[in-house]
Structures are given as structure tokens and as C-alpha cells.
């Protein structure tokens, strides 16, 4: 899989060299072009993970950005209006993520989403404690996150 990624990078590099334009959009374009070429060439290979994963990553990024903006707007609204709408609380969240890298990525994502903030990870790395701004129901919040962010993230990583 890393082989494909490096190949893809090489292709985009060649593209940049060929066109002679160092502008970053050109590089991006070269990357997409390279991806497409690679995908075409390796359609019949057994290991197709790279070609699934890239779209997944892209869709995850958009998902994340959407969540980010949505929540940001919500918080921003709350911040500037005189009345507070939030119901904060600290929630215990059992982790599906196993490795350090997974946990780290998840916590970073969670922390960067407005309304949630990781306070700590338990010693055995099975639980995280999240400070949530808009908490109607702790169980519901845990379920939503599990099916939303964590599932999507793990899908990319595994």
C-alpha cells in the first residue's frame, strides 16, 4: 500500500517536473492524475485497499470539515448571544480504538470538533473522558460518536 502511495507521489513529482510549474495546484493536479493512472493500471490486482482508502480519506476529511463548521457555527452563536444554550458535562467514553496512533488521532479529532474536549485517557487506554458542551444524554452522545467519527476513522486506519 505504501508502495502505491510512493508511486503516486513520484508520478505527481514527474508531472510537476514535466510541466515546469512549481505551483502547488499543479502538484495537486499531478497527484490526482497519478492516482487515476495507478488505479487504471492496477484494477485487476488483489490488493485494492489503496484505491478504496483514498476516496475514504477524502470523504472523511469532508465529513470532518462539515462537522467542524457546523459545530463551530453552533458554538459561535452560543458565544455571541447573551443566553447560554449549552448543557455541559464530562462523559466516560469506552474506546474501540486500540493502538496509540488510533487513540491519538481520535482524541485529536474529537478535541478539534467544537463542543467536545478530551480531558484524559485512562491508564489502561480503554476509556477516555470527554467534556461535552451540548449534552442531552450521555449514552446517546457515546452512541453517536461511536457510529460517527470513531467508525469512520477506524475504517480508514484498519
Amino acid at each position, binding site marked *: 500500500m505504501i508502495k502505491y502511495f510512493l508511486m503516486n507521489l513520484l508520478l505527481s513529482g514527474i508531472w510537476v517536473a514535466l510541466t515546469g510549474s512549481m505551483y502547488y495546484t499543479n502538484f495537486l493536479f499531478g497527484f490526482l492524475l497519478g492516482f487515476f493512472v495507478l488505479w487504471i493500471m492496477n484494477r485487476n490486482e488483489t490488493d485494492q485497499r489503496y484505491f478504496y482508502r483514498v476516496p475514504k480519506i477524502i470523504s472523511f476529511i469532508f465529513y470532518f470539515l462539515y462537522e467542524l463548521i457546523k459545530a463551530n457555527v453552533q458554538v459561535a452563536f452560543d458565544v455571541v448571544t447573551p443566553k447560554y444554550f449549552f448543557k455541559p458535562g464530562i462523559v466516560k467514553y469506552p474506546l474501540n480504538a486500540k493502538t*496509540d*496512533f488510533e*487513540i*491519538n488521532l481520535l*482524541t485529536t479529532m474529537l478535541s478539534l470538533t467544537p463542543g467536545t474536549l*478530551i480531558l*484524559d*485517557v485512562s491508564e489502561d*487506554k480503554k476509556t477516555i473522558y470527554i467534556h461535552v458542551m451540548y449534552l442531552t444524554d450521555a449514552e446517546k452522545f457515546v452512541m453517536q460518536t461511536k457510529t460517527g467519527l470513531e467508525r469512520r476513522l477506524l475504517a480508514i486506519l484498519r
Partner: protein
Amino acid sequence: MKSAILQTATRYLLPILLLFSFFLLLRGHYFPGGGFVGGLVASIAFVLHSLANGTASTMKILGYKPISLIPIGLAISTVSIMLPMLFNLPPMTGLWFEEPIPVIGMIGSALFFDLGVYLVVIGVVLTILFTIALDE
């Protein structure tokens, strides 16, 4: 105090910061940066590591006591400064290779001097901070 998140983060922050410090060191002659800032950033990398994992484990990565970097750095600086005297030039005169080297640019005694500064700064900052941290 241990934080798993911080520990994991330092695992990739340490190389990033070190890389960045080299970057600052090498380009100092052309852009903002240089031995001082480079050394400071490098030492911050280790300080961060020690905050996350404990000073003992950072010392293990370093291998040597940071205090031993000080004479090495000073020696490099001093030698690069006295080298011109061999060519009957005043000490501290900049000596340069004729041709520029890719990425780094011109190689000269100034760079060695900066390298000495870089090492001294790392040695100094880490000696100070680790000494205090270990005195608990």
C-alpha cells in the same frame, strides 16, 4: 504525571522538531534562523520529550549527559575560529569552499561555528532543565 496522549505525540513531535532545528541551523545564513534558534528548538524537542516521558528516558535517547555537549560545541566553535590563523589570517576570518553545495548553500567556517553554537545551546539548555528536573 503521565499522559498517554502526550507520550504518543512526542514520539512524532521529537523527530519533527529535531528536523526543524537542523533546518533552522543550516539556513541561518540565508534566512532567519541559525545556531541559536536551531539549538533552542532542538533542546525544546528534548525538553518536551522529558516532560512527557520523564527525564531518565530522554537521557537514554541522548546517550550522553547533555553537559558533555558543551565542551564539544565550544571546541568546534573555537577551532573554526582559530583555523584561519593557520593560513596566517586573523582568527575568526571566514573560510569558504569555492563551490556552493546544493540545499545548504556555501559551506564555510561560519557554518561550523554555527554548529558549535548549536551544540552548546542544546547542551546548556538541557543541562539546566534536566538538572532541575532531576532535583526533585
